[in-house]
């Protein structure tokens, strides 16, 4: 379970990215964060994966305050969180397979398991023919899918996805969402930050809208 209690994030000199965010996300839930550019979606995801620390407030994952975790414990937590970044963070001089494998290598998975998992994911995302392609040579849409594949490769318990369909056509968007739903059905908590209403318009899951760093609405769950 993810708990955010009165979480704020400010950047110097006086930019307030998030303000008093309080929300609980259950284990195994699929949760949408929506809002315009600059609303604070990406900042919220960065706080959830402990890439950044909150200026105020408390963030707990599974009952553990993540801003107090350090060293080995923090690394172990991060291994359980898969993140698909908006800027991809791909190693553009490595192959698609190597990029996806990296998240499994850090948890010392066996090479044959890594190879099989990489092939499965590439097939599910329609990238089988890009296995040995250097990621710097892929299109934006393909890079985005590789990022997603890397995020879910290690079978994390929590998957954070930032604008997963920004560079994708309708068919590929469908494919990506299908994969995320599959992970969700397998028990993973999924948090998706997006402004693409086609992926959350008819959803039965909770949708939280951010505006200027604050929660504007939260539908399908707790009232504000």
């Amino acid at each position: 379970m993810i708990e955010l209690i009165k979480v704020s994030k400010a950047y110097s000199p006086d930019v307030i990215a998030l303000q008093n965010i309080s929300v609980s996300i259950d284990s195994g839930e699929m949760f949408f964060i929506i809002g315009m550019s600059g609303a604070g979606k990406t900042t919220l995801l960065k706080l959830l994966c402990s890439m950044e620390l909150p200026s105020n407030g408390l963030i707990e994952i599974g009952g553990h305050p993540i801003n107090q975790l350090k060293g080995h414990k923090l690394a172990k937590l991060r291994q359980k969180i898969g993140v698909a970044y908006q800027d991809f963070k791909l190693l553009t001089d490595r192959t698609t397979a190597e990029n996806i494998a990296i998240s499994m290598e850090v948890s010392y998975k066996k090479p044959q398991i890594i190879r099989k998992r990489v092939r499965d994911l590439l097939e599910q995302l329609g990238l089988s023919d890009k296995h040995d392609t250097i990621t710097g040579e892929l299109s934006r849409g393909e890079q985005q899918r590789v990022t997603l594949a890397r995020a879910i490769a290690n079978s994390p318990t929590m998957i954070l996805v930032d604008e997963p369909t920004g560079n994708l056509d309708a068919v590929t968007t469908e494919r990506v969402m299908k994969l995320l739903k599959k992970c969700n059905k397998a028990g993973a908590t999924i948090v998706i930050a997006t402004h693409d209403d086609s992926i959350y318009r008819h959803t039965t899951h909770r949708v939280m809208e951010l505006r200027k760093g604050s929660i504007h609405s939260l539908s399908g769950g707790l009232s504000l």
Partner: protein
Amino acid sequence: MSFWLTVIRQVGRNLRQTWGSQLMTLLTVSLSVLIFAFFYLIYSNMLNLGDKLGDDLSLIVYLEDEPGPELQQQLTNKIRTFDEVESIRFVTRAEAYDRFAVQLGENSDVLNDMPKDFLPPSIEVIPMKNLRSLNQVKLFSSYLARLPGTLKVQYGQDWVERFYYFTRLLSIIVLLSGTLLILTTIFMVAYTIRLTILGRQAELELLRLVGATNNYIRTPFLLEGVLQGLLGSSFGIVSLYLLFQWIKLRFSGPGFLNLFEFAFFSPWVSLTIISISILLCTVGSFTTMQKFLRI
């Protein structure tokens, strides 16, 4: 995948990506070890030579007149008052003449016209083995020179002093080259690791984000330092050995090098130099990581 297999793969990848700077560092470490070991080899051999010559060290006290038995006993007592000595031997004029004739060998006939007592009598004093430092020998020599009836004392002063100052100079060179070795190994390795870290910032950031532990990220860099030390110093020692063998081969036959046994390092000393180089390179790698690899 096991931890060490992953680490070795990372090291291999690092070496491939930064082979240019890695090679430069390897050569610098090798050269530093070679320079240091070269001077240390000469120094240790000079010390051995000094020990060997010290074994043969004797002070010759030339006397005005041949001492009688009583005076001999008195002089012996006076000499032993300064320090214990290994042996004291009185040489008469006649014995000195005979020795000189033997030393001249085939040319001994030049002495035919000389009187048999033209050489002064002397005392040969062989000091104890612990009397090694130049100052102690000098003190003993001046003590002997003050004995009554002494003309002069000889022990090859010039030669001994030159040898002593030469070994002093060598010890300074060894210290300087040792400092050079320390500085180059630590700083060059640190610099190379720093370049690697800066060149892989994106990857290191990603590794942190996907949950790589400190050991996972740091161990390959440490191992790189260990490898640089191991390969660099081994290469330096092997190069020196080859150079040593070449010099031995080229300069074999009568000459300066054959005056004494010129020996290469024992395996133990070679291993110590390699171990210290590894340690220094690891320190260089570690300090850089502490500074530039904040996890």
